[in-house]
């Protein structure tokens, strides 16, 4: 059974590889698709917290038209964005540039996550050096390998024990009487 599973998996991997690779090569975008991507990166100057893609105001409609005209005239996305930044300032960008001081905006979270991961690794290392030895008796979940059902049976056993224990009079009171 596990052999067939392994072959299945190998087959899947073999099938997946070329498909995954083919994903990397994106087909060329239409002007409208490019325009929508640019729209999503530009804020509407008169609307609170909306991009020109989101806003239904007349100004946003006009800005969207400008984006499409410029794309049709052969300008690149970067040129169009630069045009709007020149006219309205850097706050027109929906996200900070990845340059200069604004790079801090992008760098800090990455640093934070790397730092957090580092701390986690250190903590795990320290926790793995046991401060005191725990009794190893109840390691029912270690999955010692006697049949794939055993960990689940153990769970069920434990649950059943609890259910029965609660349903009838608790064993402690029996011991007391």
């Amino acid at each position, binding site marked *: 059974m596990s052999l067939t599973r392994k072959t299945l998996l190998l087959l899947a991997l073999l099938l997946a590889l070329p498909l995954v690779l083919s994903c990397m090569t994106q087909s060329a975008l239409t002007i409208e698709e490019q325009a929508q991507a640019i729209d999503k990166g530009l804020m509407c100057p008169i609307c609170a917290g909306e991009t020109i893609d989101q806003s239904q105001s007349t100004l946003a409609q006009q800005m969207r038209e400008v984006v499409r005209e410029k794309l049709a005239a052969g300008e690149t996305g970067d040129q169009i964005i630069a045009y709007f930044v020149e006219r309205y300032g850097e706050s027109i960008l929906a996200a900070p540039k990845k340059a200069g001081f604004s790079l*801090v905006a992008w760098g800090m979270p990455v640093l934070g996550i790397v730092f957090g991961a580092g701390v986690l690794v250190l903590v795990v290392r320290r926790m793995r050096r046991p401060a005191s030895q725990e009794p190893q008796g109840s390691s029912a979940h270690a999955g010692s390998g006697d049949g794939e059902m055993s960990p689940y049976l153990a769970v069920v056993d434990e649950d059943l024990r*609890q259910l029965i224990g609660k349903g009838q009079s608790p064993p402690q009171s029996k011991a007391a009487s």
Partner: protein
Amino acid sequence: MVQIGLLSLYLALAVSVYVLAGSLVSKAIKSPQLLESTRFSAYLLPALLGVATLALISAFLQHDFSVEYVAAHSNLAMNPAYTWVAFYAGNEGSLLYLALVLAIFSALAILLMPKDMVQSLPYTMAILMAANVFFLAVLVTMANPFAVSAFPPLDGQGINPLLTHPGMFMHPPLQMAGLIAITVPFAVMMGQMIDGRVGDEWVELARVWTLVAWTVLGIGILLGSWWAYTILGWGGFWGWDPIENVALMPWLVLTAFVHSIMVQKRRGMFRMWNVVLVNIAFTLALFGVFINRGGPVVSVHSFASTALGWTFLGFLGLGLTFSFGVFFWRLNALRSMVALESSLSREAAFLLNNLLFLAVTFVTLWGVMFPLISEIFQGKTLTVGAPFYNQMNGPVLLVLLLLMGVGPLLPWRHATRATVWHTLQVPVTGALAVAVVLAALGVRNLFALLSFGACALVVISISLEWARGVRARHGRGENYLLAFGRLIAANRPRYGGYVVHLAIVMLALGVAGKTFYGVQQDVNLGPGEITTLRGYTVQYLGDRSLVKADRDEIFYDLAVTLPGGKETTLVAWRAFYPDKNMAVTRAAIRSTPWEDLYIISSESPDGGRAIFRIHVNPLIWWMWTGGIVFIFGTLVALWPQQGFALELASSRRKLSPSPVRTEV
């Protein structure tokens, strides 16, 4: 009526000050009588604030425009049903609402405190009351909802038209309630810490209260995105807006907490860490309450412009100092003696889960704060919007989704590579097969394949868990249905958690469908003209107008031919409010599990033509349905196990020196 409302606020303030002082004194002089007295006094708070709330609502219903708050947030034309929404539409009203919810939660928390935690009850009560005193003091001094103007206007200014939506009946109250409810697990835990009970006694009670806050907040957030989807007109559901972000952050930290608390419950580990998580969640909740009630934009001004801003900032600082002060005071006692046996175990998976949730929280907090930082250091305002969050948080959320498929299958304590592979091979193979099939069907985006593959991974691993459990029980002579029911009943936290995981998968399907395969089109149509988008043919038939007292409504009739050839009609709606110079739209949506056709009118030129934005949003239906599954899952997890869970947990603790930990 108004005087009664104000009087109850003052009375409530007096009562909460008495309970705060009395509970601490009762602890100091060891007086159970005084404790009982303060305890019963605390039950007065919901009643008093209920009276204040009713007073304000009745002022709305009577159109008493001499009350400034009523004049600012309603008018004669307003549908009386929206009184409830108008009640919390502004600063003063939302603070009153927060105080009401806090009072109710405080009273419930005190009422449901198990008997064996009576030692720490005075501290818990004092912390709850400190928060009550804060909100009540702010209400009577700085934000009085019952302030009366000398020259009442004949008509009010009316409610913000954006708020006249069914989602608004539930979204803001649930979101605010969820945020403020985090005070309860915080107070329960802090009470035990101050009392020097650093063990695991607080865990079960805090877990229940956290789940309550977490569920309420989660539903509030989801309803908010449903509101945005149907009314804001850009066809999206999440804009990474500061208001959304400040509600999301505490929810994420609570999510980390409801996972890691399971490790403490079962293995007595992560004690310090759990305290830190509750502290962070509480601080972020206070931050969220502040941003929610007032300043929509996080800037230097939203804090500094008003005395209220400084007051909130002060309270925030106080909360942070207090919570971490107590933490460092008890740090040595909190150290857990239990070792992590393996980095290949359920415990380790929970740690990774926590890291990732905090990573998303950190990215989001950083994004919210960065405009402020740039303003201070550079003197220029920058926008940190959706592209930032999508690029930074998207990959982390994807890894979380993958972890959700793997983590629950890992055994506690330790595993070998072989056993892990043994449990994972079916889900992993299945997920890969799904990805391959999707790729063969033409899905070409790598992130889309990863997302759908991860969804499949989670669904398969949860199904396997269920199937194995049911089969094992069936082997003991229960029929399958009974076995399934008993399996869930025997361990509600675990299987409720799985149901919530399924809800998250449904949510992820919606997000992935819309993000990777949503299409949109702007069209300018004259009556009778036709446009097509992804197999849909939309014909604009014409518009009808309706003049109401406060607004001019326009109905745009649309004839739609579906991809299958069937025909249907849809109506997009738009209203203009001349007094507020504001337009509000309502999208025409045809929703199916496969995809939504979404048509919304834009600002249109005069002369019969109309501008529409048309979206086709695949799989969005799953997102809203997932919300219902989410509620169901949390109910399963919260439902008292065999009678009253808290009492049970405490009695079990009394009976056995080493607590029996339920399997998670």
